[in-house]
């Protein structure tokens, strides 16, 4: 079972991870943790500090923790994160937790890697608007309003609930759990929600769908990585004077055997949405 954890910096992702690891260990499950922090685009260096909150598990043989720098990979995880999750799974770890970079951008790649995606929200931050944007509703299997001790926590819960009532879902309806990760409050409820989602995935057949999608995603990433390097070399060359960017793109694409045709600008293939506003058919 793999669990992805995303949300803005400081919302408590690492603290939640630590609490979930404690819970899993209490249940006798072995755990792998992969946490991703950003690489500096300037020096390529990185400061990986998510381990700090997991110190109590450093010498526990049932817990393996690996920090990763994003190394320029966008989407909230590192290029090698999917491999790390696969390896930990193959190694026989019962639970694999992935903490994303959490820069609040579109970190939707986590949903391709993890069976269950948790989106942690920060009370009083206006995050409920974020949720409407950028497909967060598409990736959140469980919303976690952390820092339930915060005075705005209940307002946040109401806002999410109100937003969900406007939507009609196909399949899984995201759950909402309030937690106080620091004190460990709400972690049992969160674990129960994760369990329910796992049962849903298996019973509905969506697990198989997700596995196939994850495989395709990884193949795409690997192929794209290679193509990107070729492309980088190709666009470094000199273009004929007076060539506009569109025409130049055609020149480059021709080198790849790509025929003129499909519009270069525009959205990728559409996917069936998980939720749409009620009233639309």
């Amino acid at each position, binding site marked *: 079972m793999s669990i992805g954890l995303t949300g803005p910096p400081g919302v408590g992702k690492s603290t939640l991870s630590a609490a979930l690891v404690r819970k899993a260990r209490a249940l006798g499950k072995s755990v792998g943790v992969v946490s991703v922090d950003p*690489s*500096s685009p300037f*020096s*390529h*260096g*990185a*400061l*990986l*500090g998510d*381990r*700090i909150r997991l*110190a109590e598990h*450093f*010498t526990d043989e049932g817990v*393996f*923790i*690996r*920090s990763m*720098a994003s*190394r320029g990979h966008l989407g909230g995880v590192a290029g090698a994160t999917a491999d790390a999750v696969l390896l930990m799974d193959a190694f026989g770890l019962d639970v694999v937790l992935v903490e994303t970079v959490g820069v609040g951008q579109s970190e939707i790649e986590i949903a391709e890697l993890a069976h269950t995606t948790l989106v942690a929200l920060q009370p009083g931050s206006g995050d409920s608007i974020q949720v409407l944007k950028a497909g967060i509703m598409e990736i959140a299997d469980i919303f976690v309003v952390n820092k339930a001790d915060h005075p705005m926590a209940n307002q946040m819960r109401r806002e999410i609930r109100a937003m969900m009532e406007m939507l009609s879902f196909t399949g899984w309806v995201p759950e909402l759990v309030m937690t106080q990760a620091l004190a460990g409050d709400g972690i049992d409820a969160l674990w129960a929600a994760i369990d329910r989602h796992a049962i849903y995935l298996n019973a509905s057949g969506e697990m198989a769908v997700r596995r196939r999608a994850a495989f395709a995603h990884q193949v795409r990433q690997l192929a794209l990585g290679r193509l990107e390097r070729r492309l980088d070399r190709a666009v470094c060359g000199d273009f004929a004077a007076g060539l506009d960017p569109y025409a130049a793109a055609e020149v480059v694409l021709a080198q790849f055997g790509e025929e003129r045709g499909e519009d270069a600008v525009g959205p990728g293939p559409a996917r069936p949405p998980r939720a749409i506003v009620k009233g639309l058919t």
Partner: protein
Amino acid sequence: MSRPLRIVVAKAGLDGHDRGAKVIARALRDAGMEVIYTGLFQTPEQIVQTAIQEDADGIGLSILSGAHMTLFPLVVDQLREQGADDIVFFGGGTIPADDAAELKRRGVRAIFTPGAPLQEIVDFVNRECGKRRELVG
């Protein structure tokens, strides 16, 4: 482009000062390395387990509490015991020259005392951990 070096920066012992460790962490990061920062009060076992799980090329340990003559050798022992003594282990803190010489004899690769130029530390880590990377891959 080669993979960045990975360095665990740890703080052991019971004193709560990690300013030095944070400055080193930041310097190594700015020099293009991936720094795994573990926080305060780490035991030798925790430090070595972290380095193994993180596939680190080096460990930098800061000690200001005066317990350096016990803690540094314990880390060296742990590394040997775990078959991980290819990891470059270096340290820093207020450590008298005689003690530093003795620690180096016992397997600590370098000791940096307050006032050591950051560039010197970065150069050391680049050189020694780079060599380790060439050997281990």
